[in-house]
């Protein structure tokens, strides 16, 4: 992207607007980051035409493939793309402040009423839904996570190591990353091996 003097001042003037817009995104979003991406698409691709559909798609896929909160990554990359480093900070802080405030209040209320008889009865019902919620999310992740047979093996390995061997979560995830790296490197070589390996 070219940055002449003129577009530079124009990009700087975007920062307060970005903060406010992402503050609003942060208030409206329910259930994860995809709805924020949809709102970004409406606001910045269709209405303001600050970036193209492909730009947003690239930002989303890079943000998704990096570790951490997907929507934090996407906000950062988007803000950086349209208004440089100040824009990135404005987007991330704007997006994070509403959930931070709301959750602080909710947690305070939860602590106050947790031991009430009726509340704890209702919470038994609520807890009963957590397993189905996570299960249905896991079903949704299945397509992205399990691209081949190795995926199922790695899944089984993670399951067994965690549940039966009580291995540290972080070690398991790092092991998964290492296995993924080695296996895809090995697969590439195996595929490309016979054709350009031996003369």
């Amino acid at each position, binding site marked *: 992207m070219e940055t002449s003097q003129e577009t530079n001042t124009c990009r700087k003037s975007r920062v307060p607007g970005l903060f406010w817009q992402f503050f609003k995104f942060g208030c409206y979003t329910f259930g994860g980051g995809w709805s924020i991406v949809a709102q970004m698409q409406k606001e910045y691709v269709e209405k303001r035409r600050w970036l193209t559909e492909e730009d947003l798609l690239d930002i989303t896929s890079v943000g998704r493939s990096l570790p951490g909160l997907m929507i934090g990554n996407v906000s950062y990359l988007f803000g950086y793309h349209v208004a440089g480093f100040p824009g990135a900070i404005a987007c991330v802080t704007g997006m994070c402040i509403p959930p931070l405030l709301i959750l602080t209040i909710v947690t305070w209320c939860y602590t106050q009423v947790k031991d009430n008889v009726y509340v704890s009865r209702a919470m038994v019902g609520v807890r009963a839904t957590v397993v189905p919620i*996570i299960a249905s999310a896991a079903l949704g992740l299945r397509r992205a996570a399990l691209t081949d047979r190795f995926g199922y093996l*790695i899944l089984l390995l993670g399951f067994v190591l965690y549940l039966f061997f009580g291995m540290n979560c972080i070690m398991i995830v790092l092991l998964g990353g290492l296995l993924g790296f080695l296996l895809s490197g090995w697969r590439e070589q195996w595929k490309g091996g016979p054709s350009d390996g031996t003369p």
Partner: protein
Amino acid sequence: MVLLELFWSFCKIGFTSFGGLSMVPLINHEMLSHGWMNLSEVSDIVAIAEMTPGPLGLNCATFAGTRVAGFLGALSASLGVLSPTFLICAVAAVAFEKFRDSSFMQKVMSGVRPICLGLILAVLCSLSISNYAAPAGGVSLPALFIGAAALVALLKFKISIPMVIASSALLGLALIR
């Protein structure tokens, strides 16, 4: 120093997950190993984080941080969970063209995603044991019924998660004694 511990815990959670509910196994592990929460409170975080706006990881960080050390705890947990964004994304944003087809990251993630799914399934097992147990011992049939109803509502009728949680609270009020 509990604030630093919170920050560091959520750093680890942020760096070793890829968003959404894949954070639950790590949150579960960190909360239990520090003695900050028990299994049913971890379930409560997930339900509360799903019902309130904002990304799940951030909501969990705020909830856990507030529970452990008040508003400052919430701040340091949130900063922790955002640290991969500020570190890795900052590099990625500068070298964005290179990261567009970041084959290294894609290779690594091709192993991280399935292993996280395995962890999620493992946590589902331990959460099931805690969430469907009756206080007197054995299985709580009303809780099992609510869980089955929620599963059908989510998968078959595509009812939104906040709606499912709200109705299950009412069912709990009616059925649990």
